[in-house]
């Protein structure tokens, strides 16, 4: 199926320099590698951190299974004897699926558009000979340092003026704007490593930009595309500030914002609020189980070179 001979193991390296090849070579080349040695301090720290991470997560899950009545009676660490899914039903009945659909729409549209226009930009930046185009790379670099909360007031102003306030576009458009810099940088770094001869031989065959993009750049940068897609999807999916400020009506609500409103709505029903937390995390959790490698490498996209 693969249209190219690049690695298709889904490892999604950020650079094509094969930084991870050592870890993927199995059986090991060397008998004794640093990673195989005991690390006492690390072990103690590792297990301590394990408890710090797992206890709150355990609490979220078991509490979400408690019945609302008297959920706080008794020790919170002991699993409930009368576990129930009532709270999940309650959350699902509270328009949860609508919020889920909104989240899916916003995330998918933002990521698809971001990746598509970023790959065009990255390809052009790498292949162009004009100074102006090449220097836009540094411009995107600068974009990484813009603190997102600082733009929320002007975005609110702009989107209200444009009549887009309280629409899903109000979430999608700025999400794309903020995702572009890092996406372009990662893709450009990746495309830079594509051998020039490949481009030249295609040019000799008479290929134009679009064809190059479609038959060469996109297939070859598939691992990087997966990585940036995962990274951007996670950011958009979990975003809170944009939805909080830029939308208002319940039918435009996305999941993280719905958690916030559930908290106001079910104030005394802590198990229901936590059931909403579990439900909102479930789609990503399923992805995490099936594609942990891509997800994990996607999350550090571009930073780990």
């Amino acid at each position: 199926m693969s249209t190219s001979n690049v690695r298709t193991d889904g490892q999604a390296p950020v650079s094509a320099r094969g930084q991870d090849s050592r870890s993927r070579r199995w059986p090991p080349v060397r008998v004794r590698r640093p990673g195989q040695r005991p690390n006492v301090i690390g072990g103690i720290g590792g297990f301590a951190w394990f408890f710090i991470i797992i206890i709150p997560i355990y609490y979220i899950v078991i509490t979400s299974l408690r019945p609302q009545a008297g959920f706080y009676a008794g020790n919170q660490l002991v699993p409930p004897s009368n576990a129930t899914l009532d709270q999940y039903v309650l959350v699902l009945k509270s328009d949860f699926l609508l919020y889920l659909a909104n989240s899916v729409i916003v995330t998918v549209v933002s990521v698809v558009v971001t990746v598509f226009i970023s790959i065009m930009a990255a390809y052009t930046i790498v292949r162009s000979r004009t100074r102006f185009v090449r220097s836009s790379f540094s411009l995107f670099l600068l974009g990484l340092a813009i603190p997102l909360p600082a733009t929320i007031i002007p975005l609110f102003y702009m989107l209200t003026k444009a009549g887009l306030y309280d629409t899903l576009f109000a979430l999608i458009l700025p999400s794309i704007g903020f995702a572009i810099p890092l996406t372009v940088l990662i893709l450009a770094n990746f495309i830079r490593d594509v051998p020039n001869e490949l481009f030249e031989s295609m040019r000799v065959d008479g290929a134009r930009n679009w064809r190059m993009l479609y038959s060469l750049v996109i297939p070859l940068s598939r691992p990087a595309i997966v990585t940036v897609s995962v990274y951007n999807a996670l950011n958009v999916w979990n975003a809170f500030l944009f939805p909080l400020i830029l939308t208002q009506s319940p039918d435009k609500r996305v999941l993280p914002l719905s958690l916030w409103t559930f908290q106001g709505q079910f104030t005394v029903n802590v198990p229901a609020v936590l059931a909403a937390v579990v439900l909102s995390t479930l789609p990503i959790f399923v992805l995490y189980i099936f594609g942990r490698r891509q997800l994990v490498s996607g999350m550090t996209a571009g930073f780990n070179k």
Partner: protein
Amino acid sequence: MVAPALVFFFVFAIIPLGIALYLSFTKWDAISDPVWVGLANWPKVLSDPVTINALVLSLKVIVISWVVQTPISLLLGVFTAGRQRYRAVLAAIFFLPLILSSAAIGIAFKAILEPNFGLAASFGLPFLKQDWLGNQELILYVVIFIIAWQFVPFHTLLYQGGVRQIPVSLYEAAEIDGAGRLRQFWSITLPQLRYTIVTSSTLMVVGSLTYFDVIFVLTAGVPSSGIRILPIDMYVTGFSANQMGEASVMAMILVVMGLLLALAMTRLTGFSKMASQQEGL
């Protein structure tokens, strides 16, 4: 073909900065049109004790977060870089907070820290039974802990990747020279991780400056003075008190601080993104 990306980036990331600057010279209640007031907002905001308190709190969060998160992430990064099976399992669990949204984390910790029937009360340890979120002295440290809970996994990942890139030959040479494990850590691992440390620290510092979501959720949208850091102060001033002009001044302060911190972090350490990052090879 670079145009669409540039247009989006300009319209939704660069132009807003210009508009924030413009709004900082106006009086605007978020409903009617902004009215030009010149420089009036700037001295007002900069001399406001609440803003100064927000600045101090922001700096505290930045410094303490860095001091707390860096050693933990470094330790866990080195630990999870190992190939043992149990370490891989632990790593898979460490990374779980990464898939939770900030809103989810805020809500969960609000429930956990509830003094009467939260989780903290269930351990049977008296000192855990505190009004963690109500106590103005404590809340800063509670938030710093939650930030660490949320972001240490990410920085652990960075360090894990960094450690795995260190050439094995360096350790072998050190071993032949008779260097012990700690010595190898100080003389090989740490220096080899210098770029990772810079990257991680820059992200950590700029990230702490712009921290918003969890604090907002944790304090149910009415943040108390003990945790009113800059972005929170900006939000409350702008969207709760409808003083968008003043809030825009704070937005500009955020931009300037963000840029300065990012520049300082990369300059001080002699690190440039454009430079080769092929560490030690």
